């Protein structure tokens, strides 16, 4: 007997400990969040776009020019490039994933980009689709006529773009770009290293243009116009274009992220404003709390003492599942929260099955302790059967769903599984621990249910 009571106590303490973790690792609940250690800081709930606000973009990748065996490689390369570009915006936790074109998806290779907190979808798509165009141009021949342009203020100017002519050398032949700082002025610079072909081209260009300007163009505008002093054969160049450190860093990132291996087109996009997300989040939490309170009231009113025990084990179920959401982590969406809320209702199902059995056993004249243990073993098959179909549905939904459905399927499926465990083990331990209350009339009243006396 004492063993069971100690076990019940341990479970209660463990439950309280987990609840404490859930509380401490949530910035909204814990006013002292900044001072917590990193374990707590790294485990807030991960919110989906519909709750946090942000953009959800679906791109189609045109892989028609690529051999069948190469598709998955180029899709991975594409994802890496897009991921690098996305990371440059400084978005927290962007998600870039490939959706393979199987039988169900209609054979199209897709790329899904989730940008939490980014609501300016135009800017986002522009940045994702953008390949920095790096060009090297040489001075135009002297004898070529140059046009004077008179601007609106009446000042005559030489059109700069006509002063230079393009060369074969472009960003295509770039091996990598690095951020450098000038030894003396601490001015940020972008170092370029060409690949073999690029090195060859660069050597040729510099050789032919000693004493002249070789202009470096980025996205069609000259950013640096250095004068060549000698032939450069090492394949290394430097752009010093009055950058701020941030600009230089961004340019390096963009140059390194390179060109897209396959062309992409935007298929669909979704933006959720931050206020809408906040509203959805708040009402989701509100619905969960109210739903839980209603269920708890009903359980205590209808099942009395066992009902109270069920509420206790329901509380433990809730903190366990919330902790799982944090640690796995599960991305919570509005549908996901709905799945979780429904699972609160279903979690009680097993308890109700057990209590009804216990009640029957009591009626047949057994003692309370006996009834509890027979009730549990008899109810198990019904519990298993009644949850199987929900689990089947959740698995299929998870397997086939889009990210929205997946969130629902995952929270519902996890809820059903965890609740089966918690209802059976935790409720049983608690009920056995309190069966010391004896066999008095009052004790039997506490263990019966509904409107009966």
């Amino acid at each position, binding site marked *: 007997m004492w063993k069971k009571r100690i076990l019940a106590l341990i479970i209660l303490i463990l439950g309280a400990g987990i609840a404490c973790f859930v509380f401490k690792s949530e910035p909204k609940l814990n006013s002292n969040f900044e001072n917590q250690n990193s374990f707590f800081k790294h485990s807030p709930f991960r919110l989906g776009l519909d709750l946090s606000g942000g953009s959800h973009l679906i791109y189609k990748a045109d892989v028609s020019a690529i051999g069948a065996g190469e598709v998955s490689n180029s899709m991975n390369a594409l994802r890496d490039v897009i991921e690098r570009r996305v990371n440059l915006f400084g978005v927290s936790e962007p998600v870039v994933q490939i959706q393979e074109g199987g039988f169900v998806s209609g054979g199209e290779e897709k790329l899904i980009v989730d940008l939490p907190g980014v609501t300016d979808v135009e800017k986002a798509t522009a940045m994702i689709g953008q390949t920095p165009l790096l060009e090297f141009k040489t001075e135009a021949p002297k004898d070529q006529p140059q046009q004077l342009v008179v601007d609106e203020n009446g000042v005559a100017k030489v059109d700069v773009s006509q002063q230079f002519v393009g060369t074969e050398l472009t960003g295509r032949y770039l091996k990598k770009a690095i951020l450098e700082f000038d030894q003396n002025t601490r001015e940020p610079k972008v170092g370029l290293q060409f690949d073999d072909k690029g090195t060859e081209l660069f050597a040729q260009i510099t050789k032919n243009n000693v004493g002249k300007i070789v202009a470096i163009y980025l996205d069609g505008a000259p950013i640096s116009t250095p004068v060549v002093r000698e032939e450069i054969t090492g394949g290394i160049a430097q752009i010093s274009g009055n950058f701020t450190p941030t600009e230089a860093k961004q340019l390096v990132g963009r140059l390194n992220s390179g060109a897209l291996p396959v062309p992409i087109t935007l*298929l*669909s996009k979704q*933006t959720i404003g931050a206020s809408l997300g906040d509203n*959805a989040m708040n009402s*989701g939490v*509100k619905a969960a709390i109210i739903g839980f309170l209603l269920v708890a009231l009903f359980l205590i009113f209808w099942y009395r003492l066992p009902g109270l025990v069920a509420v206790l084990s329901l509380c433990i179920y809730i903190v366990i599942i919330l902790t799982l959401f944090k640690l796995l982590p599960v991305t919570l969406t509005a549908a996901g929260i*709905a799945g979780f809320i*429904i699972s609160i209702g279903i979690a*009680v199902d097993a308890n109700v099955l057990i209590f009804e059995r216990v009640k029957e056993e009591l009626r047949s004249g057994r003692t309370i302790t006996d009834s509890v243990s027979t009730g549990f073993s008899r109810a198990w098959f019904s519990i298993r059967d009644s949850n199987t179909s*929900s689990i089947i549905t959740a698995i299929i939904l998870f397997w086939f769903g889009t990210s929205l459905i997946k969130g629902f399927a995952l929270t519902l499926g996890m809820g059903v599984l965890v609740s089966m465990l918690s209802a059976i083990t935790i409720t049983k331990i608690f009920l056995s621990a309190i069966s010391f209350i004896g066999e008095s009339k009052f004790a039997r009243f506490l263990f019966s249910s509904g409107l009966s006396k």
Partner: protein
Amino acid sequence: MFIIKYKKIFIGISILLVILSIVSLSVFGLNVGIDFKGGALTEVVYKDARPIQVDLSVSLEALNFGSVLLQPTGDTGYIVKSRDLNETEHSLLLKTLSEDGKVSLEEKSFNSIGPSVGRELTKKAIVAIILVSFAIILFITYAFRKVSKPVSSWKYGFMAVISLLHDVIIPVGLFSMLSHYYGAELDTLFVVAVLTILGLSVSDTIVIFDRIRENLKNRVGTSFNEIVGKSLEQSYVRSVCTSLTVILVLLSLVFFGPTSTKYFALMLTAGMFFGTYSSIFLASPLLVLMEELQAKKK
């Protein structure tokens, strides 16, 4: 047991509801949303008063986006439904909505889905529905694999499937009414709701049928309908209680939850309610009815 005694009335109610649902479905139809057919949905909220609807409609017409639907939402907002828009078209739309920047607005949400994504989702939804139905029927077959007398096991399965159809058709009929009167749209969540109802409602029926077979084995009563009646008596409280807890949380989701899951929760509530109704008042009475017909034949 009164349920068995008045079984024809209860079965009649179910038949009536199913017929009503089918009629509503064929009259009102379902309002297919942009998830499946593609298109764009833009929701904006104005800082102060919103511009007059007619004026905006005229200037939206001038954009040549095809048919554009403008619906007022909230106190100072509009929802604009159109075909799917690319970036330039989207910013053009926002510019028009803000009357070239004269009135300030906030874009609450924007959702543009290309037709191919919609087609893909439709395909996925159909495959998922087929798979879930198939898996559930397999599960029912498995649950009733042991032959029992006087009603053979496949008939239990058949009844479970009938009550399953009943549980799905009624909420769908209800949804078609919501769709007609309140503009609810058939979206991804609708499909999820249907599939979840499939999963949730069958379990109730199975638990009651389990009871019937257990009582048949133990010869609790003399006649089949007495045994079914006793089994119902033993299990209806449990059925009502478990559905009640789920319905309680669903209702709190309907009334307090996020707007995006409102219709979803409402459909599930209906599914849960009729699922419980069918497992108590439809499936078992049908079993008894079938047994009686069988006996008459002999």
